[in-house]
């Protein structure tokens, strides 16, 4: 088994070469799904380091974006060996950036972290209408709905989306979490979401709590 500490540190350092080297070597050994989960966990711990450095003003938004990209690349590489674990999905979620908003960096970071944590993630992309959320939720019946948005007008779009879930009679069946810079407690209440966050790691913990 590879040295997970080195991997965690490389993720924290955003050292792409080292990370991809380790992951490729690991996948080549045809590892068990269980070991693969440990590798994912090590990457997540690395993301926590990234988050800390961001809070300490050593990393900036550009670094977060690169970190998100590295994480999704890593998950892609691990998918074949993780697939043995497919039956063990911890839960499922539908995510998307709400109508009128085209920003998706934050949503993508959260999406890859959730995937890494074992969620089945259905990503509807950007500028997602309430109707599109409703249709997908009816189709895949997820545990969780995650809405993202960074424009101030995203708050209205989130409210409309929750309203559409209510009207379609599917609000009760799901937990709703919202994320993105402008969300806060007031907005969360107004919108009728169950939780809000401006931090993907924190949001993931909330989601994990819901599917336990």
């Amino acid at each position, binding site marked *: 088994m590879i040295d997970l500490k080195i991997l965690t540190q490389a993720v924290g350092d*955003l050292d*792409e070469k080292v990370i991809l080297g380790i992951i490729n070597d690991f996948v080549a050994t045809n590892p068990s799904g269980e070991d693969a989960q440990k590798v994912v966990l090590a990457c997540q711990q690395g993301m926590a380091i990234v988050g800390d450095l961001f809070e300490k003003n*050593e*990393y*900036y*938004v*550009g*670094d977060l*974006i*690169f970190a998100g*990209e590295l994480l999704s690349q890593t998950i892609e590489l691990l998918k074949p060996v993780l697939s043995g674990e497919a039956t063990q999905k911890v839960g499922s979620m539908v995510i998307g950036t709400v109508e*009128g908003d*085209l920003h*998706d*960096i934050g949503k993508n970071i959260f999406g890859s972290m959730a995937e890494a944590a074992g969620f089945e993630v259905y990503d509807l992309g*950007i500028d997602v209408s309430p109707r599109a959320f409703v249709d997908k939720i009816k189709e895949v019946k997820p545990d969780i709905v995650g809405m993202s948005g960074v424009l101030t007008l995203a708050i209205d779009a989130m409210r409309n989306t929750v309203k559409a879930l209510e009207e379609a009679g599917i609000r009760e069946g799901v937990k709703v979490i919202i994320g993105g810079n402008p969300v806060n407690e007031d907005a969360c209440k107004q919108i009728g979401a169950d939780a809000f966050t401006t931090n993907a790691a924190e949001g993931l913990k909330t989601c994990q709590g819901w599917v336990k």
Partner: protein
Amino acid sequence: MTDAVAMTNERNQMFRDLFSGKTPKRVPLSNPATQDFAIQYAGLDLAECQWDLTKLEPVYEKFCQDFVTDTYPGGSIRLPSHYQILGSTPIVMSSSGFMQHPEVVGLLAEEYDEFIASPYDCIVEKVLPRLFTELNGAPGKVAMTLAKAMRAQSDDLAYLGTIRAKMNAKYGYATMMGALTEAPFDFMADFLRSFKGISGDVRRYPDKIAAACEAVLPLMIKKGTLPNPAMLGYTFIPLHMAPYLRDKDFATLYWPTFKKLVETMAGMGQNVQLFVEQDWMRYLDYLYELPENTIMRFEYGDPKLVKEKLGKKHIISGFYPITLLQTGTKQQCVDKAKELMDVLAPGGKYWFQADKSVINFEAKGPVADNMRAVLEYVHENGTY
């Protein structure tokens, strides 16, 4: 001489004084709202007015009548007709009529070397066809598209120019020329590599970014050059990416070519106005190094600190938080203007502008009334 001509002369003198470091007669001020706001304020449809520019004259008439300002409060390079003709992907009209910018990648990472070898050739051959669908295809079709688009934009700009001339003649605004350019790093980021793309490139190929910035610098200089440097006016440079970079990436990748750009403009005798977007407080020592009397309009940060560190050498502007216009009472809005003037006006070298543009108007909201009160306050109380 009519009153309006006298007012134009007086205002031109204020800006000449400001730009050359003399204390003007009073604090010059600019209305922070845009054409989008003006159209909604007149109760008209955004999409329709941006297509049918004849609708805009009464829009500007009301806008100019109701809000006092020293500079013409309008103009836009982002009118829909030529973008439509070109099949634009980086600038599209949203369903509500705003011209907006989705993330696009005009240049692939593997094309850096080609770009570095000849940036303008690469823009014409690779970037434009990728970003503008109608510029992709048979040469004949592309040529016809380009001709239509240039003619459309040229007509639109000429029409806006006549409205501007009418308003200047009636309201006596300062008659300033403007040119628009970007810091080389921002140019590489915005439409070429994208926010996401450049963030990865900073880690993966920093040397290529540095070389690309050097290669594109002459284009950015040329783009920012006024028809005649002695004209009253400035080169406008909005700054985007620096706050998202680590200090060391900023120092090696962003700053060197940006500094050369500003120095070259100043060396030609042109004024430069930077729109210092987001929070640049960790870069104040860098900004200090720019040529004397560079105009810096700030979005966020500490006005006191900025006045202290930069205010003797440079011209400071911005900081007025437009969100307050939405949430505050009239008194709070005016108090904020007073607070900023108390900090920034002493000694001159100050131009009243807001932290960002007001693009949205809600008929029931307080923004218009608050904004009017603030502009009037600054106009009446800004005398030195």
